[in-house]
């Protein structure tokens, strides 16, 4: 049986400094203490800056003796995170876990991982190869993915919404037209 008290205290601790730490967690369902959703801000000075990355957190029944299971819900272009599934390659979430760590410290480690990728221990080989061989291209892709998938708001979306287009359609059009607002508008108009 997972320790209910520890989990409750961890939740409380996470809530305490959510404004300064750039971390946020909440329960998916108030009745289930073992399934959390976390959100971390992309570190400043990285291609992930400006993005909000959502993390799925599942605490196994024998937590804290085993690490929490974490994966990215938000798509991200990063050598240590699968661009397909969001699976994370990070030692403390595997054999370097210790009960001295918490969900909060694990999320901070993820933030650090986003600042300093480790391409020699990759989760996504394609990204890792790009990171090592053509770094500029990696930065551009990662930035584009951040803007596309992790931005709290898409640039130009407000404008399209104010013109009366539906949110779903406007987002789809923006994605299709590489975030070019004019092209997206034209596409939406021609559709209509």
């Amino acid at each position, binding site marked *: 049986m997972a320790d209910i008290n520890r989990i409750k*205290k961890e939740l409380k601790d996470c809530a305490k400094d959510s404004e300064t730490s750039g971390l946020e967690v909440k329960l998916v369902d108030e009745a289930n203490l073992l399934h959390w959703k976390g959100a971390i801000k992309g570190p400043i000075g990285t291609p992930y800056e400006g993005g909000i990355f959502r993390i799925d957190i599942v605490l196994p029944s024998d937590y804290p003796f085993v690490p929490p299971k974490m994966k990215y819900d938000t798509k991200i272009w990063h050598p240590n995170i699968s661009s397909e599934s969001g699976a994370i390659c990070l030692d403390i979430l595997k054999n370097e876990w210790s009960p001295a760590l918490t969900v909060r410290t694990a999320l901070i480690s993820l933030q650090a991982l986003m600042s300093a990728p480790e391409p020699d221990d990759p989760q996504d080989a394609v990204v890792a190869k790009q990171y090592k061989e053509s770094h500029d291209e990696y930065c551009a892709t990662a930035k584009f993915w951040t803007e596309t998938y992790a931005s709290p708001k898409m640039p130009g979306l407000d404008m399209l919404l104010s013109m009366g287009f539906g949110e779903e359609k406007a987002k789809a059009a923006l994605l299709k037209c590489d975030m070019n607002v004019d092209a997206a508008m034209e596409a939406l108009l021609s559709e209509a």
Partner: protein
Amino acid sequence: MLVGGSGYLRVAEEEMAVQLLPSGLYASPRLCEAVRGHEPRLQHQLQHGAPAAAVLADLRDIAERRIGTSAREALPPAEFYERVIAELDGLGWSVLLSLSPALDEVELLQRDDAGREHAITMILPSEYPRLEPRTRTALPAPFEISWPRAATTGRPEYSLAAVMSQFKRELQKHQLLWDILDDFDANTWVLEPLHPTRDCVMRRIALSGNCSLQISLHVGAPTSLPELLFLGADRILRPLREALNSNLGVWSVQRGVRENLQDVLQTQFPSRPQTALGEGDAYTTECAICYNYRSLDDTVPECACDACGKPYHGTCLNEWLRSLPTTQQSFNRLFGECPYCSRPIAVEMFADRILG
């Protein structure tokens, strides 16, 4: 069934609904009726963490005894009630704390010289005042009542007033003991018991560096050196033990136990922090693995890392160390690393923890 659960209890061929919550016990009306008068004790057991199974077994025993004997106990005669009411009139109703509906259980309040409040419960047999009432108190020593004897017949005369005056005299005996205990409660950080009753002469108080000291006073000689038990990391406790051994001559029965202890141990006992426990608190006493003070099997964090002082339940440390391939075992001890500071730590092996 665990605390927090609900279910049915089979009493004398009958299923009765019952629900156990940390806040109390809830049962069907018939079951409530059957255990009437025993609620405070059951409640007390629950609040002090007695295992649910034991509380339920107790509950069933009581209920079966009442329900099983279908012939109801004969009601006491009318004189019984008149007598009880008259006695309460005499004592003054302000001292009455509680009274059972059948008037057979009376809880009265007595103040000692220092103004501390003490409760005494008297259970009156239906033949009262011909038969002796039973009393229940929270005193550190047994309380024997010597009843006044009637001049003519030589038979003991039972009365509530006699009990109350003797109770008051009995309270005098323990004034010094309670003064010392109150002094600990007010000026140190008492970790255990959380809600001390007047019969409890033990206090576990916080020391610096996650350590604690369990003090058990002697009821007969409260100002003498109490029984001491040091809990925590040896690194911090060793100097205290050495100070205790070399300074025992300083102990003076004329002074308070707290002052004596502080002088002998050459330390100041930290007082209770005003704010709630936070991260990085130097006196955290919760287990650093499960974040609880009391574990599921009701132990306190009895292990501590000698290097960083983090406290652990032996069971938690066992479970963690056993999951690591680097942990060594020698006889019945496990040798591994502290989860926080990675320095060597050893713990006695426990049998497999029963997971609830």
